[in-house]
């Protein structure tokens, strides 16, 4: 039954019906790969001032990496870069908790479903792939278009 702790229904729902998938206009684009398993994502970030107005992506990979990108889209679009970074840091902390963390549902919403994944070291990278791509793309976008407020 440990499997159910990894493959929560929320994760499987996001995997089957990913939110925000597809590439749209963006300020910066990155391509990240997970060399151990061949998961790949191309991700674009669109900012308006300091607000994340869109995160679009094309990706291939396992259910965990696909669901994680979908949850990322839900969580960061509409937030300021600062708020979104706080979510990203909370998610990173949860994924590094080796099965000990539960995650703050106020901050992480659907992403708390990934708590079970943190018990599987080989899968943590899958869950973090899109988030690391987002962090990288956002840094690039900010470097090219520094936020004014």
């Amino acid at each position, binding site marked *: 039954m440990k499997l159910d702790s990894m493959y929560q229904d929320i994760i499987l729902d996001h995997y089957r019906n990913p939110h925000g998938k597809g590439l749209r206009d963006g300020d910066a684009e990155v391509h990240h790969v997970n060399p151990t398993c061949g998961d*790949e994502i191309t991700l674009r970030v669109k900012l308006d001032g300091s607000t994340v107005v869109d995160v679009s992506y094309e990706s291939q990979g396992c259910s965990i990496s696909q669901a994680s990108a979908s949850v990322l889209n839900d969580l960061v679009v509409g937030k300021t870069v600062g708020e979104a970074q706080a979510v990203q840091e909370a998610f990173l902390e949860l994924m590094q908790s080796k099965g000990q963390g539960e995650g703050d549902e106020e901050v992480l919403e659907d992403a708390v479903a990934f708590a079970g994944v943190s018990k599987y070291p080989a899968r943590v990278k899958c869950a973090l792939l899109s988030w690391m791509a987002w962090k990288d793309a956002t840094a690039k976008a900010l470097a090219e278009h520094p936020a004014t407020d």
Partner: protein
Amino acid sequence: MTSSTHESAVLSGLLDTDAIRKDFPVLQRLLHDGKPLVYLDNAATSQKPRQVLDALNAYYERHNANVHRGVHVLAEEATALYEGARDKVAAFVNAPSRNEVVFTKNASESLNLVANMLTWADEPYRVDAESEIVITEMEHHSNIVPWQLLSQRTGAKLKWFGLTDEGRLDLSNIDELITEKTKVVSFTLVSNLLGTVNPVEAIVRKAQSVGALVVIDASQAAPHMVLDVQALEADFVAFTGHKMLAPTGIGVLWGRQELLEDLPPFLGGGEMIETVTMGSSTYAPAPHKFEAGTPPIAQAVGLGAAVDYLTGIGMERIAAHEHAITEYALERLLEVPDLRIIGPRTAVDRGAAISFTLGDIHPHDVGQVLDEQGIAVRVGHHCARPVCLRYGIPATTRASFYLYSTPGEVDALVEGLHHVRNFFG
């Protein structure tokens, strides 16, 4: 092992796996609340029999010393054990001389050793900007990257055989690939991803006709079939110990004696010298010329014990067992809906590694759900990413068998895959 052992009895050529499995302590393990381990990741590494573990222990408990140095009892015993392992390996691959067996740390190091020797060699071996190197699209990264490095460092052109849709080498353009400019042809005897056994003779004949050196990566062959370096007619053959019941950290490069004598050393250090002054050194004869520093002594002793174990059973019988298991596995896997085998779909000229995709379900997810049932498979690109690109897939799941694999384990795998489909369906 599972309820569906009905067909198992009809397979012929099987080894007495009940007896063999008793030699492998790890195969007794129960995982995840009492499920027996079904270990189907043998192409990545094999499990180790008690005879190998005992040899390692006995070495460290009774004989440990550095080799080829000192005159005390332990030094002499350690040297005899280490060199005894070389004799065993030489006999195992039918080498004309024990001096043709170089111990390395793995097959990657063996292949890098050859590629580096050819960078620094004098004529006629020297690889330079006018030269061409030929490999294949089905190589493990360890037989691609060293040649890419050689190509980048010397300006030599790297070319490769493509693959047919069935997962075999496409030899149709062999005359354009292997030409007078070709200095070295390096290819795998058995693909770690596709399972394909390659047609050695056709490639070796062509390479010899243009005077090119032939390097064979036998990592997936040495554990599973009779390996006869004289019959292969290659110049170098590389393989690793840990896939053939031995510990990690020990690999082999077999090379023709005259080549090992003519070619320059790879690593410098202790052990590989004859005399050293502050200005220059002369080198020990092969194989010691290529074994700088304290070698993996215990691991070599373990490899010797592994060779004894395999020889005791007989490589022909091991090959026949795996052939029967592979044939049965292919037949049963093709019953699973949406399962696509990447590689030959019959057991003809085929090793015991079977890669497949399962509909849209990512191999990572397949492997995870199988693991929950105690079934260990490999998922990913198996260090052969160009093969995945060739067949337009990001990754595969791979089940790979060995002398202790049973038809019951094939049944468990098939049952597990049905469970995977239901889980993600």
